[in-house]
């Protein structure tokens, strides 16, 4: 697959889009909260994947992780460049993630689980850290600084959250 991409095989990219387009769109949409801007971000990302595939190193991790990080970073850059104040939404991050899910309920999720159901049975603290990192692009130390949580605690909460979800979303 990666080899085909590196050989600039358009069918390979088409396949990649069919398989992961919606997942990346979902990730970007929850950060950007605007469908048009999200489409822009996702388009840029696929062009980037196409142009920069040579920079991907399979030894360092899965292709999807690489694509997801590209997408999240691009989406976060987009909202930061639009000067959307981070503080404005910190209070209600759960709310807005869920709101997006409600708004998109007709088109949400390939297999029928939304963010809410997915995260409902997480402990509040774990959910908070996961949402911060995943949807807002906070680094661990930023969370630790801003919310006065010890860095080690941030790390272990994120770890427990992902571990818990691992069972839930078994591929």
């Amino acid at each position, binding site marked *: 697959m990666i080899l085909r991409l590196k050989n*600039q095989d358009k069918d390979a990219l088409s396949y990649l889009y069919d398989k992961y387009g919606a997942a990346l769109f979902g990730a970007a949409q929850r950060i950007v909260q605007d469908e048009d801007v999200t489409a822009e971000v996702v388009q840029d990302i696929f062009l980037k994947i196409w142009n920069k595939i040579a920079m991907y190193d399979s030894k360092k991790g899965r292709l999807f992780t690489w694509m997801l990080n590209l997408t999240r970073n691009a989406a976060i850059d987009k909202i930061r460049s639009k000067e959307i104040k981070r503080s404005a939404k910190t209070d209600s991050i759960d709310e807005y993630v869920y709101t997006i899910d409600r708004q998109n309920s007709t088109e949400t999720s390939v297999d029928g689980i939304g963010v809410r159901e997915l995260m409902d049975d997480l402990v509040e603290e774990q959910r908070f850290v996961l949402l911060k990192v995943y949807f807002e692009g906070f680094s661990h130390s930023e969370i630790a600084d801003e919310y006065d949580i010890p860095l080690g605690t941030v790390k272990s909460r994120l770890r427990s959250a992902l571990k818990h979800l691992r069972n839930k979303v078994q591929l």
Partner: protein
Amino acid sequence: MDIKEYIASGILEEYIFDTLSPQERIDVELRLAEYPELREELNAIEESLEGIAMATAIQPPADLKANIMSALVDNLGGLKEESTQQKEAPKVIPMPQTNSGMWRYMVAASLTIALVTSYLAYDYHGKWKSSSDAFAQLQAQNTQMAEQYNQVNNRLDGLVADIDIISDTDFKRVNMGAVDPTQSYAASVYWNAKTDEAYLNIKQLKTLTEEQQYQLWAIVDGVPVDMGVFDFDVEGLMKMKDVQNASMFAVTIEPKGGSVSPTLDLMQVAGAV
């Protein structure tokens, strides 16, 4: 190394979310190569992340895919051409040429930077200038407003003082009507018989030339007594000279500065106390 502890520290999650410093990344990568258990755990975390993304996917707009596919440029073609050129190059072109190629790039880069910088400087100069103009304009407006405010305030102070006099029952208002019955000239004198103070108020008087002024007279025991001169355009109450036992007030037009005795021909208004 205690692998369990290393995993429990959460550093692999940080690695996956790409929030580590470059040194930390390299360190993690070295350990991943060394310990298969770490690699396995990393895989599992990545899978769960992928699972989350899949579970929370949102169907993109229908035309997005077509847009992306049509925007693709075949980079490989370009790359191939470049690489063949590069292969041929050493055969034909001697080493120094590559250097000059480098130089060319550097000169081009410097020129680009210089151009961009000049443009930015020009652009910012323009922005700075327009904001400094706007600021000066605002300052001028501010000064003007302050002046207007002062004028209004002074006028208001004057009016408040006038009202004090008008509403003081010790002041008697003496209305002076036009001497020429075809005109509607009128003025009044507020006179306090106890303190002898007198104020003049113009209701309507004709406009005078620069060389002329009005003069107020009081008739005391049948003799006109000078009470001072005033311009035709004074507003509000004007303080005049004190007078005792006045039986009548009158206003005449006199040369600027006033006269010793009234020019009776030019008497404009008059009124009895």
